[in-house]
């Protein structure tokens, strides 16, 4: 926790220009982030993108994930301290759990492991109709399939008519079609809502 605070303090000062600017030195990195020294390969035409993986996490050995793709392919995905992890909100790598759905983008290493730069867990993007609204969330209809969308205080936001997202959800209307970005709760027909895009 302290390191997070220290990190944030350093970055805060840097972003606001309170620290001096130095020329890039030739110093190499010793951290696992060195994995990224390999630059991303360009995908062959017609072949799957080697720098992308999707599937279900079936195993986890420290920060190495085993993922079974929906096309049956197996992937090994290495998380590092510099991997961005999204699970309803930006979070930490310990949140990647067995049973989670995953999208990962990164760099394929020579040993076949994908060193992940960005990971999105359980992310869904749905076109739905709002069936009803309650205090805890929205009952949604996704082409006949019923889905409950939980509203998470401090996270769930709505963007109306393409304007910047706001936390006020009181302009949502029953019977309207909306686009929802959220995190699926594995094994259920429920999601937590990150952002709702609505046209009023």
């Amino acid at each position: 926790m302290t390191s997070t605070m220290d990190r944030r303090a350093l970055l805060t000062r840097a972003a606001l220009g309170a620290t001096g600017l130095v020329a890039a030195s030739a110093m190499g990195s010793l951290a696992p982030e060195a994995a990224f020294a390999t630059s991303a390969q360009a995908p062959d035409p017609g072949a799957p993108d080697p720098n992308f993986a999707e599937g279900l996490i079936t195993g986890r050995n420290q920060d190495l994930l085993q993922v079974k793709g929906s096309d049956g392919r197996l992937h090994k995905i290495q998380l590092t301290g510099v991997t961005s992890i999204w699970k309803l909100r930006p979070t930490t790598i310990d949140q990647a759990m067995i049973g989670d759905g995953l999208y990962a983008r990164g760099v394929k290493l020579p040993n076949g492991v994908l060193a992940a730069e960005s990971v999105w867990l359980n992310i869904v993007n749905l076109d739905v109709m709002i069936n009803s609204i309650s205090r805890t969330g929205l009952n949604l209809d996704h082409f006949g399939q019923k889905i409950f969308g939980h509203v998470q205080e401090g996270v769930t936001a709505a963007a109306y008519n393409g304007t910047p997202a706001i936390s006020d959800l009181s302009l949502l209307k029953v019977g309207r079609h909306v686009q929802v970005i959220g995190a699926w709760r594995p094994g259920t027909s429920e999601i937590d809502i990150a952002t709702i895009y609505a046209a009023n």
Partner: protein
Amino acid sequence: MFAQQVAAAQPLLIGLLLLWTSYGKLANPEEAEKTALPKLVGEKRAKPAYRAIGIIEAALALALLSPPAWTAEVLAATALGLGFTGYLIYAKVVVPEASCGCAGKSAKPVGYRSIGRALLLTATAAVALTTTQGWWSAGPATFILIAEAAAFIALSPELDRYWLLPLRRLRVRLSHPLAGTASTTVPLAATERRVILSPAYRAVTGLLRSDVRDYWDEEDWRFVSYTARYDGRSATAVFAVPHSDSESVRVAVVDETSGQTLYRPALLSMAS
């Protein structure tokens, strides 16, 4: 006596219900593809079978609605109701994603309400078996049908948009359940949008390698960090997004191990 009249009135309701469902089937025979019929009778025969059921329903409806009142008509309606119930249970178990196809266009999968409606149809037909009188001689007992019709409407998902949706809309208009969600906290989605539209982002977009890694608020600013690559090594790009519009978005590319700022497009942020 009254029970007899109630029983006698049933064919009127069953007849009207079957007219409605047969119209749905005959007007939209392509709906057969969404039902469990292709699985039950084969792809090719699904549409003719669907249309045939519609014709049977229409013929039976007209027979029930017009004199004379034959027990055979009511018996056929009971058998049809039982058949529908069995078919819907089959559909729900074997092809859960299939739509009911009961009364025309509906993408909704077979639910307990549709099965309940088929059971209610069977029950009303069974009640009608207890009399030989026609519905035109039912007298005031006909008013019972209003309550029964309401039950059929409540069990029809196809009709929800005519009564259930307007009711829910009214409720939300009177008191919105999510009225208390407005807060002064800026959603991350709004911050990301401001970052992406900023000159600072354009200056470093080629260096960014990840999605948002971390974000936090401090005084009048929100900070958002991304993994970046600068001059062949791993770095962190951190954006400072002001809560007010008076300042512009700033960015710095930082080497976290040494704490050094590697790149800051200062001129660009000043120019904007």
